[in-house]
């Protein structure tokens, strides 16, 4: 066994890290959300004005709704792409499995910004997509709504988060003992029934984990709307960013952050319980 002193010494760095980079910032954010800005200066005066503003000004709620809608679309699209991909890799890819797996993972190593700018190049007025459509004479002038729209944001976020959705689903599919599929067929179930009654239920923990990744990460995203979203696709994180930046209203920004944090934490809590309920063995 390890000595008490050893355990204490070894646990100091991580504890310090957590305090310095997690707990302290959270505490500061929480405190800021109850302060206010007067005449361009931060005033350390405790009040609920920021939260009142949040709940009375419909603008914030509208932006939040749009954010949730975009995040939900991203979640749905990445599930629709990620699940079949994971299913194919796990059950039907054969010897190509390893290669395809790596191909799915590789984009994760490419910088988020690079991928964002790539979409800008593809979707822009003189971008690859418009050029292609005009070359085929499907359109005669650049289609402007590709870029700077919620559509572009959903597209870019789906591209970025599909691997995050794919991974947990793939892991849960890989963990299904293959004799179960044979047992199902042996008992008279065809492939479709076997999928619906055995594979799908057993992959729900991975599905929930993947959906949570996509939703939570999209909910807090501010780069995609910044790069390809435009004003019509402003998301809640962009508001926070501007409040902490040009608008110089840290308290209000902190109040929004606290709300998003609460929503995210309760979401994670719920999905974790869901995953546990559906986890077997």
């Amino acid at each position, binding site marked *: 066994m390890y000595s008490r002193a050893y355990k204490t010494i070894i646990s100091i760095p991580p504890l310090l890290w957590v305090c310095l980079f997690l707990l302290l910032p959270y505490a500061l954010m929480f405190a800021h959300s109850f302060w206010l800005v007067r005449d361009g200066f931060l005033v350390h005066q405790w009040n609920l004005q920021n939260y009142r503003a949040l709940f009375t000004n419909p603008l914030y709620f509208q932006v939040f709704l749009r954010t949730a809608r975009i995040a939900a679309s991203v979640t749905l699209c990445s599930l629709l792409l990620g699940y079949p991909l994971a299913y194919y890799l796990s059950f039907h890819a054969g010897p190509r499995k390893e290669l395809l797996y790596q191909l799915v993972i590789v984009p994760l190593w490419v910088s988020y910004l690079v991928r964002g700018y790539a979409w800008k190049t593809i979707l822009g007025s003189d971008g690859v997509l418009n050029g292609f459509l005009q070359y085929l004479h499907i359109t005669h002038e650049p289609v402007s709504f590709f870029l700077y729209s919620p559509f572009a944001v959903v597209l870019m976020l789906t591209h970025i988060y599909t691997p995050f959705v794919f991974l947990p689903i793939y892991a849960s599919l890989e963990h299904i*003992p293959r*004799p*179960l599929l*044979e*047992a*199902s*067929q*042996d*008992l*008279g*179930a*065809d492939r479709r*029934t076997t999928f619906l*009654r*055995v594979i799908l*239920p*057993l992959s729900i923990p991975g599905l929930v984990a993947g959906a949570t990744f996509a939703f939570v990460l999209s909910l807090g995203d501010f780069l995609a709307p910044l790069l390809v979203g435009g004003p019509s696709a402003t998301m809640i994180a962009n508001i926070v960013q501007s409040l902490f930046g040009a608008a110089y209203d840290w308290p209000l920004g902190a109040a929004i952050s606290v709300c998003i944090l609460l929503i995210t934490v309760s979401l994670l809590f719920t999905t974790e319980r869901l995953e546990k309920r*559906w986890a*077997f*063995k």
Partner: protein
Amino acid sequence: MSAAGAISPESASSSGALLEVRCVAKSFGASQVLENISLQIAAGEFLTLLGESGSGKTTLLRLIAGFEQPTSGEIWMSKERLDTLPPYKRRVNTVFQNYALFPHLNVRDNVAYGLRVKSTPKAEIAGRVEEALRMVEMSSFAGARPATLSGGQQQRIALARALINRPQLLLLDEPLSALDANLRKQMQSELKALQREIGIAFLFVTHDQDEAMALSDRIALLRNGALEQVASPREIYSRPATAYTAEFIGQTNLLRGEINDGVARCGALQWKTSRADGAALFSLRPEAIHLAVASLQLQDAVHFRGSIRQQIYGGASELLEIECGGNQVLRARIPATGPLTGQHEFIFSAADAIPVTESPTLHGPLITDHEPR
């Protein structure tokens, strides 16, 4: 067998077999796992596929269940060609080695699975599930998840889940191998009783020759992908066709020698025989050798002297290793008598020396041991 493809469905039924395996071969890539297997299973029969690991017994079972396709040959089941059907259309059910119970379903839903996917009316399902659970004495566990059950209990559920579909043939893939020794013995007798009671055919795969002997109506011994011998347990034990069979099923002494002018000579032993002259190989079971005493009279008795090399006490009986000159060692199983040393006279009946076909033996000549694990 070129005529295999021409056999009509009628000929399968005329043979009276429930399942007929015709000249089936199976290769995985370059390695041939099964070659030219022909086997019939009668309705209500308990047939065991016995063999070492790698002998192809599980592959044959999987071919019948439909999880593998034969490379050549056909499988028929009561006038229906089986090997071209997907597994879910075959009227056979399988008990898997590690049970393969669905972890997300409770016992009741596991057992009901086969009926649910065939859209059986709900009322009927409930009754049949109850009946199946009662049959395996697991009624009180209907709401339990498989993970909370012991190995023996999971085994019973796997059995109920297969039998509820009322298959004509049940395939069992080493179903008892994961159980500890005592429970295995108990499950063996329960399995046998159950099979008699419901009267459907069982095709049982095992590597355990004692299990095969205890359960089967017939044993099909597989070796390197080919059938070595198919016979009832009594026959396969008392009349092994090959040296391999004799060694695999029980213990034996293989006596190598030759026959000249009606006399068989194997080392220090010789006896009269009506067989033709030439090289010969005999299987002599250890229990056929007795200590020679005046009261023991045997027909065609063969006497020999030997010194006790080793004596292994086994409760009711003991096993002697007897050195009888010229490096020949025989094993004899005699009723427990107390410690023996030195030279003794032994006796066996020439009729118990069964002529067998030569085949490369399992572990070299003479000293063999196939006690159950």
